[in-house]
C-alpha cells in the first residue's frame, strides 16, 4: 500500500458521494409525486481501489402493485355503472315528486275515477286525457334518456378504445427503452416508474394481468387472457354507432382480433371502464328499456277497445293509447322500443282535434267500438271498466326480469325498485372498490414512496463522508509535502 493508493481511494469516495447525492436529490425532487418510487444507490467496495457506485435500484412491491392495478380496474368499471344509473334515475327521481311512471299511472287512474263521478263533464274528460298524455310523454322521455345513456356509453367506449391504443403505443416505446437499458446496464429506474404509471392508466380502461420476463421485458394480457402487448402493442378495434335506438345493439370491442365484450365473446373482460360501459350499454339500459316497453304494452292493452256489435267480429284495437304499429294491439310479448312510440290516439286528443269524451263513450277505433250506444251523458260503464283493467293483474314478458304477472301500477313500482336497488348496490360496490383502491395505493405509496426526513439524515451522512474524504486528501497532501521536504 502506498500513499498514492490511499489518495485514489479518497478520490473514489468523493466521486461516489457525489453520485449518491445526485440520487438523493432526485428522491427529494419527487417527494410530492405519489407515483414516484424511492431510488437506492448501491455502493460496492473494489479491492485496492476504494468504492464505486454499482447500480441504482428502486423500491418495488409487486404484490401491492398488482393489487393497485386490479382495484383501479374494478373502481373504474363500477364508477361508470354508477354514473349511468344516476342518469337513468332521473326517470324516477325523488319519491316525493311523484314523477315516476308508477305515480303517473296512479294519477291517470285517479283522473278516471274523478271522471267517473262526473261523466258528463268535458273538463274531467280533458283532465283524464291530460293524465294519459303525461304518462305517455313520461314513457317517451324515459326511453329517450335510456337511449341517450346507451349512445353515450357507446361513444365513451370509442374514446376508451382510442385512449387504450395510445397508451399501448407509449408503453411499447418505454418498454423498448427499459429492455435496451437493462441490457446495457444503465439506470432504468425512471423508465420503470413511467411504465408503472402507464400500466395504471391502462388498467383504468381494462382489467389486466402482467408478466415480467428477462431484461425487465413485460407482456400485458386482459384479465380474460387476450394479449394486449407482447413485444409489440396489439391493435384494439371498435366500430362506433352514431346513435343507438332501442332496437339496435352496439358493436363489440376487439383486441388482437378477439372480441372482449359483447354477447358473442367467450373471452369477455371482467373489469375496467370498457367492461362497465359495455354492461351499461348491453345489459342495464336494455333491461330498463324493456321494463318501460312492458309498461307501455300493458297500458295499450288495458285501454284496448273491443267490438261492441251484437255479434262481435272485429279484433280488439288500441284505445286512448296507441303506438307506431296501431291501431292493432302489440300482442303478448315484449316489443322493443314501444315506450318510445306510445302516444295518445288523435281521435281522443283535444290538442289534435279529437274528442276527449271518447274516453267515456269508446269508439276511438271506429263506429263498431262505441260502448255508449245510446249516447247518454251519465254512462260510466266504460270508465269503470278502464279503472278495473288498470288495477287487474296482467301478464308481462319475463325477458324484462320482473314478475310475469302483476297489476300495471305494481309492475311500474317494481321496475322503480329494480332500478333503485341496482343503484344502491352499484353505489355500495363502487364505494367499496374506491376505498380498496385508496387503501392499496396508500399502502404501496407508504412502502415505495420517499420520506423527506430520511433523505435529510442520509444527506448529513453523505456530507460527513465528503468532509472526511476531503480531510484525508489534505492530510495525505501534508504527508507527501513533508516527505518531499525531507528529500530536498
Amino acid at each position, binding site marked *: 500500500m502506498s500513499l498514492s493508493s490511499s489518495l485514489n481511494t479518497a478520490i473514489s469516495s468523493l466521486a461516489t458521494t457525489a453520485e449518491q447525492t445526485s440520487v438523493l436529490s432526485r428522491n427529494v425532487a419527487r417527494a410530492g409525486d405519489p407515483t414516484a418510487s424511492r431510488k437506492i444507490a448501491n455502493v460496492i467496495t473494489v479491492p485496492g481501489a476504494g468504492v464505486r457506485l454499482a447500480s441504482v435500484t428502486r423500491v418495488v412491491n409487486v404484490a401491492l402493485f398488482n393489487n393497485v392495478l386490479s382495484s383501479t380496474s374494478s373502481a373504474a368499471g363500477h364508477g361508470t355503472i354508477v354514473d349511468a344509473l344516476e342518469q337513468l334515475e332521473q326517470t324516477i327521481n325523488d319519491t316525493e315528486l311523484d314523477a315516476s311512471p308508477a305515480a303517473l299511472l296512479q294519477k291517470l287512474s285517479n283522473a278516471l275515477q274523478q271522471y267517473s263521478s262526473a261523466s258528463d263533464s268535458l273538463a274531467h274528460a280533458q283532465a283524464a286525457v291530460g293524465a294519459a298524455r303525461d304518462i305517455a310523454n313520461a314513457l317517451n322521455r324515459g326511453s329517450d334518456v335510456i337511449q341517450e345513456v346507451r349512445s353515450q356509453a357507446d361513444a365513451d367506449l370509442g374514446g376508451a378504445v382510442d385512449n387504450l391504443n395510445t397508451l399501448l403505443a407509449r408503453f411499447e416505446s418505454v418498454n423498448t427503452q427499459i429492455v435496451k437499458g437493462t441490457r446495457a446496464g444503465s439506470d432504468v429506474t425512471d423508465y420503470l416508474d413511467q411504465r408503472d404509471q402507464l400500466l395504471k392508466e391502462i388498467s383504468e380502461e381494462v382489467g389486466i394481468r402482467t408478466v415480467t420476463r428477462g431484461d425487465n421485458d413485460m407482456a400485458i394480457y386482459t384479465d380474460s387472457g387476450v394479449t394486449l402487448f407482447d413485444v409489440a402493442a396489439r391493435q384494439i378495434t371498435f366500430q362506433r354507432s352514431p346513435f343507438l335506438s332501442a332496437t339496435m345493439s352496439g358493436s363489440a370491442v376487439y383486441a388482437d382480433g378477439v372480441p372482449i365484450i359483447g354477447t358473442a365473446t367467450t373471452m369477455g373482460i371482467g373489469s375496467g371502464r370498457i367492461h362497465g360501459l359495455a354492461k351499461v350499454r348491453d345489459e342495464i339500459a336494455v333491461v330498463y328499456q324493456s321494463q318501460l316497453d312492458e309498461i307501455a304494452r300493458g297500458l295499450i292493452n288495458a285501454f284496448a277497445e273491443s267490438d261492441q256489435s251484437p255479434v262481435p267480429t272485429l279484433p280488439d284495437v288500441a284505445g286512448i293509447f296507441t303506438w307506431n304499429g296501431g291501431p292493432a294491439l302489440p300482442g303478448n310479448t315484449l316489443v322493443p322500443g314501444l315506450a318510445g312510440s306510445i302516444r295518445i290516439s288523435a281521435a281522443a286528443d283535444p290538442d289534435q282535434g279529437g274528442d276527449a269524451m271518447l274516453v267515456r263513450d269508446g269508439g276511438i277505433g271506429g263506429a263498431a267500438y262505441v260502448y255508449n250506444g245510446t249516447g*247518454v251523458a251519465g254512462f260510466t260503464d266504460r270508465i269503470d271498466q278502464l279503472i278495473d283493467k288498470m288495477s287487474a293483474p296482467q301478464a308481462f314478458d319475463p325477458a324484462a326480469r320482473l314478475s310475469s304477472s302483476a297489476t300495471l301500477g305494481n309492475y311500474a313500482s317494481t321496475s322503480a325498485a329494480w332500478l333503485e336497488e341496482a343503484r344502491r348496490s352499484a353505489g355500495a360496490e363502487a364505494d367499496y372498490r374506491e376505498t380498496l383502491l385508496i387503501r392499496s395505493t396508500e399502502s404501496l405509496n407508504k412502502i415505495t414512496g420517499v420520506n423527506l426526513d430520511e433523505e435529510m439524515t442520509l444527506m448529513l451522512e453523505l456530507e460527513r463522508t465528503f468532509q472526511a474524504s476531503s480531510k484525508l486528501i489534505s492530510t495525505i497532501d501534508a504527508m507527501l509535502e513533508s516527505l518531499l521536504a525531507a528529500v530536498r
Partner: protein
Amino acid sequence: MKTTFISTNSISASTRQSLARVQQQLADALKEMDTSRYADVGKTLGYRTGHTISLRQEHARLTTMIETNAMVSSRMESTQSTLQNLVDTAKDFVAQLLGSRGGGPNAISVQTEGKSRLEGFINTVNMAFGSGYLFAGVNSDVKPLSDYTETPPSASRQAVANAFFTEFGFTQDDPAAANISAADMQTFLDTTFSALFDDPSWSTDWSSASSQNMRSRISSSELIETSTNANESAFRKLAKAYTMVADLGASNLSQPTFEKLIDQALLDINTAIYELGTLQAGLGGAEKRVSDASERMSLQIDIISKQVKSLEEVDPNEAAARISQLLTQMEVSYALTSRIMALSILNYL
C-alpha cells in the same frame, strides 16, 4: 434494514382523503336535517323504494276516492232534500184537497192550485246539480220532465186533452162536462187517463229521463247506485194526481164526479208519498255506505302515511347530532394536518 417506513406523501394524502369523505357526509346530513327525509331516498332504500312508491300511489288513490265520494254524497244529500220537498208539498196538497172536497167555489181554487202544484212539481224534479240533472238517471244532460203548460201545448198536455175528448166527446173546459157521471169518470181515470202515465206514453210525452240510475265507485270493490230517476212510480203518481186536479176541468164537474176525482187524486198522492219514502230510505242506505267507505279509507290513509314516514324519514335530532360529530371530526382533522405539516427535520438541521 427498515422495519417501519412511511413516505411523506402518504402522510398528507391520508388526512386529505378522510377530509373529503367527511365533507360529503356533512352535506348529506345537512340535507337530512332540513327535510327530515333521507338525502337520497332511492339510494338508501334500494329495492324498498318500490314499496314506498306503491304506498304513495295507494295514498293518492284513496285520497281521490274520498274526494269523489264527497261529491257523490253531496249529490245524494241534495236528492234527499228534493225528495223531502216533494213529500212536504204533496202533504200540503192532501190537506187542501180534503178541505175542498165539498166542491162549489172551492173547485175552481183547487183547479188553479193544482196547476201551480203541477208546475212546481215539474220544476222540482228538473232540479240541476253541477253540470247535470238530479233525476235524469244516466241521461244526466237532459231535462227529465218536459214543461206542461208551455205554448204551443206540450205533448203531455195534448195527450191529456186528446184522451179526454176521445172519451167524452168534448173538451175539458166545456160546460157539458157537468153531465159526466161519477162512474164514467172513474172508468176514464182507471183506464185511458192512467195509461198516459205508463210506458210507452210516459217516456214519449212526459219524461226524457233514463230508468238506469247513476252508478258510482265508492271504494275499490264497491260500485253502487247513487241516484234515483223521474221514471220511478212515485213521480208518475204525483204527476198523475196533479194533472188530474189541474187539467180535467174539475170546476165544471158535478159534485159526485168532482168527489170521485178528488178521492182518486188523494189515493194516488198518498201512494206516492209512501213510495217517495221508500226511495229516500234506499238513498239513505247508499249514503251510509259512501260515508262508511270514506271513513274506512281515511283510516287506511293514516296507516299508509305512517308506513311511508317509517320508510323515508330520518330523525332530525339524530341528523343534528351527526352534524356536530362530523364538524368536530373535521376540526380535529384540520388541526392534525397543520401540526403534521409543521413537523419537519429541516427545522432542526
